[in-house]
Structure formats: structure tokens, C-alpha cells
């Protein structure tokens, strides 16, 4: 499935209340100021791509993701997922996307993971055959049998993330949103998760949108990346192009600073410092 986004804009109204005002009359003291979290962003993601979303905290990255997953409604602009939009075809889209939030597990805390899987099987009306196939496939790569019969509260962070990933993919979604999937996870588990994401993408042609603070995730997985800063789109293109552009505009400095490694990390660091454009 492809995603198309046009002129996406989102403004928040922030209630301003002085923190020292404890008076009973605080109801009256309402002042609003608006903050544009996402400002006129357009891009498109073709089927089967893995796209990385990069941006500092508060850059508008998570607002964008929330709009793409239908959690927030945009003020202006259009999001179309294979020609469908959230206003009219919400249910249809939800059946076709999978969402993983790194910090919020969808699994039931106190009961074995497998029970949650069965729940999703019923919720998404996954046919028995497809369910079994998927469980088998995921078991191979993610070592599901190791922990699937334990409740999430007894699992390590890495295992919980693997379980969440599997849960999001059970219904064969065509788009997968991964929000900070590797946060706080050890290196080995991280590698496993990356391998899995790459494999799923290749075998099933799933479109994957990934946000992360870990640059190595992006380097390992994404061909294309979208950089958002202060609510606007800074860059949308492939990694190689980004590196190339960076060389052109920074040639002198690079030669002068031979020691400086031209990794993605430094490029992005410079972008944030306003060096890029």
C-alpha cells in the first residue's frame, strides 16, 4: 500500500495558565496560544519502501505519525492510504495497518502472550490458516516459543518488543508503523528485530514507516528518509543522496576536517545545528 500526504498541517492550542495561580477562579483565566506542530508537509511513500522518520523531540515527528495512523486528525491537508482516507474508510484502513509503539505495549500485562495473539486473531478475523502460518514464520525468526507462554510482565524489554511486533503483524497488514521500536533494547535483540523487519519487508512487500532516535536503525534499514524539523519537511530522499548533497555543500569543511567522519550521525547533527540549508 502506498501513502500520500499533501499539505499536512496541525496546530495545537495550548492553554496558558500560570503555574503559581492556585486561586479558585482559575476557570476564568484561560488564555490560549497556538503552536504549529506540523506545517504544510507533503510527501509520498510508494509500496514496499522502508522510510525512516527523523527529527528532534518536539520537531513534529510524533504528531505526523499520529496523523498517519489516524489517531490525530489534521487541521488541513490530506492523507490518503492507497486512495482511502481516515474520515470515510477508517475501519478498512485499520484492518490494513499495523502499529507498534515502543513505549506502549498492546499486550495484556498479566496473561501469557499467546492469549493476546488469540484475541487479535478474533479482532481482525484472521483465518486459522493465515494465523498458523504467521505464528510459524515469526517463531523462526523471533524465537517466539521461548517466551510466548509467559505473561509480558515476566519478559525482558527485547522479548516484549518482539511479541509486540508479532502482534502487529498477525493480520498481514500492508503498512507497518514502528515508533521507536528499539528504545532501551540490547544490541543482540536489536539486531534480531532489524533482521526481522527487513525480512518481512522483502517477503511481504510491506511498507514500513519507522521513527527512531537510534541512527544505526536508520542506516541498517531505511533506503529513504524523511527529516522533520520545527514542523517542516527538511529533507525527503535516499540516504545516498543525502550524503551526496551534504558533500557538495560542505566540501570545504570536510576537507579541512578530515578527521570528521561523514556518518549519518554527523550529517544529522549538522542539520539540527542549522548548517545544512
Amino acid at each position, binding site marked *: 500500500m502506498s501513502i500520500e500526504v499533501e499539505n499536512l498541517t496541525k496546530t495545537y492550542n495550548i492553554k496558558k495558565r500560570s503555574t503559581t495561580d492556585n486561586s*479558585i477562579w482559575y*476557570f476564568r483565566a484561560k488564555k490560549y496560544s497556538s503552536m504549529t506542530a506540523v506545517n504544510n508537509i507533503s510527501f509520498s511513500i510508494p509500496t514496499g519502501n522502508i522510510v525512516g522518520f527523523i527529527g528532534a523531540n518536539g520537531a513534529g515527528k510524533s504528531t505526523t505519525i499520529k496523523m498517519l495512523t489516524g489517531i490525530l486528525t489534521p487541521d488541513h491537508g490530506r492523507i490518503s492510504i492507497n486512495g482511502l482516507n481516515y474520515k470515510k474508510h477508517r475501519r478498512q484502513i485499520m484492518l490494513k495497518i499495523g502499529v507498534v509503539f515502543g513505549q506502549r505495549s498492546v499486550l495484556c500485562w498479566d496473561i501469557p502472550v499467546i492469549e493476546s495473539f488469540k484475541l487479535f486473531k478474533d479482532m481482525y478475523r484472521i483465518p486459522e490458516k493465515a494465523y498458523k502460518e504467521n505464528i510459524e514464520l515469526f517463531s523462526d525468526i523471533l524465537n517466539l516459543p521461548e517466551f510466548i507462554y509467559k505473561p509480558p510482565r515476566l519478559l525482558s524489554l527485547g522479548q516484549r518488543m518482539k511479541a509486540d511486533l508479532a502482534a502487529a503483524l498477525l493480520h498481514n497488514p500492508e503498512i507497518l508503523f514502528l515508533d521507536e521500536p528499539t528504545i532501551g533494547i540490547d544490541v543482540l535483540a536489536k539486531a534480531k528485530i532489524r533482521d526481522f523487519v527487513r525480512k518481512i519487508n522483502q517477503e511481504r512487500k510491506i511498507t514500513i514507516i519507522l521513527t527512531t532516535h537510534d541512527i544505526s536503525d536508520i542506516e541498517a534499514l531505511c533506503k529513504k528518509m524523511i527529516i522533520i524539523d520545527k514542523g517542516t519537511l527538511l529533507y525527503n530522499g535516499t540516504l545516498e543522496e543525502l550524503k551526496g548533497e551534504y558533500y557538495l555543500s560542505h566540501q570545504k569543511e570536510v576537507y579541512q576536517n578530515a578527521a570528521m567522519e561523514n556518518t549519518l550521525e554527523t550529517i544529522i547533527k549538522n542539520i539540527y545545528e542549522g548548517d545544512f540549508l
Partner: protein
Amino acid sequence: MKKYVDYIIIGMKEHLVYPSAMWAKFFSKILYLYLQFSIWNALFSSNSQINPVVNQKDTLNYIVIATIISALIECNTIEWLNAQISTGNIAMELIRPIDFLKMVFSRHLGDSVIKIVFYCIPLCVITVMIMQQPILCHTQILHGVLSILLAYCIQFLYSLIIGLLAFWLIVTWPLNMLLGAIYKLLSGAWIPVTMFPDLLYKINLFLPFRAIYAIPVTIMTSQMKASAIREAIITQFMWMILLYCITEIVWTIGKRKLIVQGG
């Protein structure tokens, strides 16, 4: 001493954080007062032929005073302690160079100051305006105040004990709910204890609940013999000492559990 004064101020401020919640609470107090007044008024006026153990005026006064002082005596220490213990924050509190239980009491004291100013006094003003008749028993008012203070301490110690039980329980609300229900009935805040059937009345004599509402409210509202007042206050005093001892024991054991198991 100064650090405890600081905690009193913290207690006051914490109560003031959500003014909308305060308004809601104030209205619910007025509503409840009105509910109780209407029910008891209706009960007496539609049963004029029978002779209940207490007369209409005394009962109405009792109900009104009980509702007003409930605004002061009520104590959120149970929930607060439960939260401190189950989140493990209590370990942080224990590191500080203060006595934890005194600190909790200081907070509660601050909370109570706000409750007196924002709930009790307005409620008193409203009832005086509406009832337009003396509801307090003037000759016993000093004893009444002493009795309320004792009731206040008993309620606090009771809450402390129940709150500390969170050291041993995973989920605390069922116990709070269970005790809350028993408390509501037996303390006499809802129905005057003199109206209880014999068996219930006798059981209640051996429980601390009536020392919290029934005793002080009766002293405040109805004429009593000096010896009866003395007896009532001594009863309260005994309960206070007993509960204090239990608090110390529970706290000592609970603290040890915390240190051994690390929360």
C-alpha cells in the same frame, strides 16, 4: 519543628491544586447534607404517631453536625499511603531526616486547615442561615471540641493503620471499600447509633468507629450528664492510645519488611 511546618504548608497546597475538584467536593457535601436532612425530616414527619428513641430536633441536629464535621474528619491518608507504598516512593521518604509518621500527620494537618476554611465554615454558615435555630448544645461546647479533636486523632490513626496494610497487600481498594462501608454504618455518620437494634449496638460498643462520629456529635448536640460526657471522652482516649500502639507496631514491622525485601 520548622520542617514539619513546611509539610503542613505542602498539605495545604496539595489540596488547593485542583479548584474544580474542591468545588465538586463542596457541592457534594451540600447535596449530602440536604439529602440527609430531607430523609430524616420526612421520616419523622410521616411517623408522628410512633415514639422513636430520640426526638426529631435532636436527630436533625445530629445529622447536620455529623455531616459538617465529616468534612473535617475525613482523611485521605489511606489512599495516599497506599500509593506511596505501592509505587515504592516510601523508600525515598525514609531516607530523609524526619519522622515519617509525623510528616504524614503534618500533611494531614495542612489538609485539614483548608477543609475547615473551605468546607466546614461555609457549611456552618449555610446551615445557620437555613435552620434558624440553635443546633449546638451551648453548655457542652468545650467538651464537644475536645471530643472532636480526639475523634480527629482516632480517625487519623485508624487511616494510618489501614494505609500501612499496603505493605502486605497487592491491591488495596477492596479492603478500603470494605472498611469504608462498615465505617459508614457503624461510625454513626449516616444513622445515629442510638437507633441501632440491640445486637448491632452492642457489637458497636467494642469497635472504635463510634468514637469518631457518634460520641463527639452527641456531645455537641444533645444534653448529657457530666458523668456520661466524662465516660465518653475517656472511651475516646482509650481508643486513641490503643490505636497509637497498633500504629507503632504495624509501622515497625512494615518498615522492617521494606528494608528486608527492598519494597
